[in-house]
């Protein structure tokens, strides 16, 4: 589904991503981990089109998407949730998801239909699957942090992605919220046959659902394999000794 080859990006003199090669198969749940500053967020920004790579290629489902702007990448089937909750704060929960559907169905140039009830059924269905349908009329900035993250997931899903990128999906959550979120994400990934690629600091989360883990350190891949292989990899242990569990 996703194939990345020799991706590079430097900022000034600093090589943030220094030749990363990575493959994620269709339907897989893959994780990228690494200490702070390893280049995870930069890597994400490179494949989503927020940043231009200096070198390397990115293929999504066989098509070259290197260097395409974010809105094009999204249209080609990639969805993303952001590290800091990125929703439309003054729109209601319903409107947040509806907007994504409008864009996905290419209805954004319709200047005359009334938007209020547009795609009501699909939007509500999505909200039901997220457990947010009771809050549909609430202004989204008043939601709890956890609910906002769920909403963000909903916005990403509305574009019917085939690959979903999740940037620290459980950041800032309590243990119970984390469990709920992880269950939700796995269920949705299964139901919609999504390919998932996420980054996380919470190792419990990573090892519980990831089928494949890639470890980044200083912009390079130092390990790539099943959770078992990565857990026992000597380089990984060295890098993580002294880091958070």
């Amino acid at each position, binding site marked *: 589904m996703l194939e990345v080859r020799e991706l590079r990006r430097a900022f000034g003199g600093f090589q943030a991503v220094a030749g990363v090669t990575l493959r994620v198969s269709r339907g897989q749940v893959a994780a990228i981990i690494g200490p702070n500053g390893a280049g995870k967020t930069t890597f994400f920004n490179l494949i989503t089109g927020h940043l231009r790579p200096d070198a390397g290629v990115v293929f999504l489902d066989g098509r070259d998407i290197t260097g395409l702007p974010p809105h094009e990448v999204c249209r080609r089937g990639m969805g*993303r949730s952001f590290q800091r909750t990125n929703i439309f704060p003054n729109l209601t929960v319903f409107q947040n998801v509806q907007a994504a559907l409008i*864009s996905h169905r290419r209805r954004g*140039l319709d*200047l005359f239909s009334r938007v209020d009830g547009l795609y009501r059924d699909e939007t509500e269905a999505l909200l039901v699957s997220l457990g947010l349908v009771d809050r549909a009329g609430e202004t989204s900035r008043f939601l709890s942090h956890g609910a906002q993250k769920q909403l963000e997931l909903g916005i990403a899903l509305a574009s019917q992605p085939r690959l979903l990128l999740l940037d620290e999906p459980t950041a800032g959550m309590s243990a119970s919220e984390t469990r709920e979120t992880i269950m939700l994400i796995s269920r949705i990934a299964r139901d919609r046959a999504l390919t998932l690629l996420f980054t996380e600091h919470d190792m419990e989360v990573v090892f519980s659902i990831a089928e494949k883990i890639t470890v980044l350190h200083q912009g390079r891949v130092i390990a790539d394999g099943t959770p078992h292989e990565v857990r026992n990899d000597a380089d990984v242990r060295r890098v993580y000794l002294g880091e958070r569990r």
Partner: protein
Amino acid sequence: MSVLRRIPWALVVVAAALLVPLAGSRFYTFVATEGAILALFAVSLNLLLGYTGLVSFGHAAYFGIGAYTTGLLMKQAGVPFVLAFPAAGVLAAVGALVFGFFCVRLTTIYFAMLTLAFAQIVWAICFKWNAVTGGEQGTPDIPYPDLGWMARLPIAGDLGTSDHFYLLTVVLVAGCLWVLRRIVGSPFGRILTTIRENPERAEFIGVNVRRWQLLAFVIAGAFAGLAGGLFGIFSSGVFPDFAYWPKSSEVLIMTILGGIGYFYGPAVGAVVLLVLNQQVTSHTEYWPLILGTILIVLLFAFPGGIVGALDAAVRRARFRRA
């Protein structure tokens, strides 16, 4: 309380507006005409400001382009109003397309500065191109459109030309506002709000943010141009300061005074500011001082504008009653 909701307020206002000439005062008609035109101007700016989140300091450029288009076509080329009026919108839209293309590539402060620079260029062209625009003196004596047909209408038939023009203005402005209302309440309008709320997220639901910003810019410019076209006739002349930056800042203040979060907010702001201006300037020459103070009070105490403050007051009253 829900009875208030069901009354179609917009229609009520339009009906009331149509009755103004019957009051028999030229002054009222005069103020009402200007108020209607400026209301359209302000609401067009709000498409950019309140709905898309773009701060333009040069909206008067399109107002000026529209005014000169209609004025010059009617006076110099004898083109009838029915063509000269839409032409104002079209030419202003073209100007907005050209200028907007460059402006949307920039972020907030730079965007604002470039809109200002372009507006000043338009002003400078109007100011210097003596042969076409009449230069510094402008082009006076823009004729009224041919309103003879109105003499055959019941009730309204007996009114004077300026009253007839006023009625035409109300109808045209109401029509334009209706169109803008539909646009804002459409899927296109919804996408604009996503851009205002979070351009980064909007990109990642597949929205080409620049393209939508440019479209909003062009539509806003077109309606500003239509307002300008009417204004030129109303002022019986077109002058360079229709595009001068104080006009841009005036319309910006009107929009915020009324409330950028509400569709009709800017229209309210336009009328209020106009009336205030009339009252204050008849008593003192220090209008900028008063305006500046009002603006400061607004920014600190009433960021939601007049309509925002009213809305909040109504909500508090309802809350207490419940």
